[in-house]
């Protein structure tokens, strides 16, 4: 009788590292250990301003984000997304539950649902403009902006981190395809 299988190795199935097209455009699949979706009930949303997750307040304006790790983004009236490159969901979930206290809420680990792709460089807005309907100019989509939108017809969460750096969260089954789409667009943008 063979030894029972006791461990599995995680595989992303995605390109490792990043791809530098030029100083003006770099693509990279970012390590993301945890993605947690927090939803607050209608009454609890009113007191969201006093809610703290690991000591940090939730962003209150819709389509805004704050924090470093975890990043907390409000992506709809009742939904916040927490992403972390350093912490596992098992570490973050208790902090979220404690922070929510007796409010009406739901917290769900969706760490394996989403993949983060970084788009960096002066040409990053131009790449996004090829497949995204929203205006990602600095005036409209500032450094603390995030949005649920579509990129290359796929549902994504887009977040601006700096003047020339964005992160895009896309569903895992579509990540490879979107990355290839970005590479294809990038090859047309960079001489």
């Amino acid at each position, binding site marked *: 009788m*063979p030894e*029972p*299988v*006791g*461990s*599995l*190795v*995680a*595989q*992303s*199935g995605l390109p490792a590292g990043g791809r530098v097209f030029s100083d003006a455009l770099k693509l990279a699949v970012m390590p993301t250990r945890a993605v947690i*979706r927090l*939803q607050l*009930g*209608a009454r609890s949303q009113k007191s969201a301003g006093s809610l703290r997750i690991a000591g940090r307040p939730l962003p209150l304006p819709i389509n805004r984000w704050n924090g470093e790790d975890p990043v907390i983004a409000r992506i709809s009236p*009742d939904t916040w997304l927490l992403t972390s490159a350093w912490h596992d969901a098992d570490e973050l979930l208790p902090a979220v539950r404690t922070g929510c206290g007796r409010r*009406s*809420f*739901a917290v*769900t*680990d*969706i*760490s*394996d*649902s*989403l993949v983060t792709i970084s788009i960096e460089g002066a040409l990053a807005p131009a790449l996004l403009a090829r497949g995204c309907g929203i205006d990602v100019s600095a005036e409209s989509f500032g450094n603390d902006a995030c949005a649920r939108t579509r990129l290359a017809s796929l549902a994504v969460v887009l977040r601006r981190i700096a003047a020339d750096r964005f992160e895009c969260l896309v*569903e*895992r*089954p579509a990540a490879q395809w979107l990355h290839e789409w970005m590479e294809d667009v990038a090859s047309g943008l960079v001489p």
Partner: protein
Amino acid sequence: MYKRQGRERFVVTTTSGGASRVAAWLEEWRQCEWPGLEVFVTPVTTHWATFAIAGPRARQLLARFRTDIAYDWRALPHMSLREGRFAGVPARLYRVSFSGELGYEINVPARYGAALWAELMKAGVDFGVTPYGIETVLLLRLEKGYLHVGADTDGTTTPDDVGWGEVAAKRKGDFIGRRSLARPDNRREDRLQLVGLTDANGDALVAGAHLRLPGTTAGSDGWVTSASHSPALGKVIALALLRGGRARMGQRVAVHDLDRRCEALVVPTTFLDPEGKRLHA
């Protein structure tokens, strides 16, 4: 399929490709019709990799993996769920079957999906494991008479039309569709009802073929919704929506497909293992 994970937590699994549509539909009801309900809907389809492990040796295959989930027939009977660790990773193990065989579905976080698939194939060599696709599962479910929503039903089909009338009638209180079930037209005896059809040759017994009852010379009395040759039974079997079908067991109907014609026998929808011995093994 609805699975209860806790007092206030449910998982809904849908037909392939229907998850986004069903999630949007649930959101619509939650936001537009019952905004006062403190209910949250979270799509988790892409978080989990799911494998169906079906067949009489499915349990032996599971035994090749380290797990703290009890899955013998007593601990995990048909239509039940347990959570724990499987091969060292978080997992949900469902006892469920769309093939009519002893069956499990295992969920692991998606990042472990490729590794689990490889290990299942490797460990399954001793049991003759083989991947099976949609065509196979559609034949297996047809032999069991499990309906395929959208193929064996359409927008006019009621629970009673497919033999679930008593289940729906037991539900107390209000629910979506209750009023429709009470409409006189939906309670007629001569509605299109799901039945089984079989024929030894049955070259016209194909999905989409129309049915005519004895004495009918024009128009249609129903149609074949699913059909296939069953190697296990050695004949062609089909599911069909037939006018007043449940009262016609043992009768023969004419089957017309373009210029082909045959006769088929009206039978119950479960062709194989009607006692469920394989399912509950």
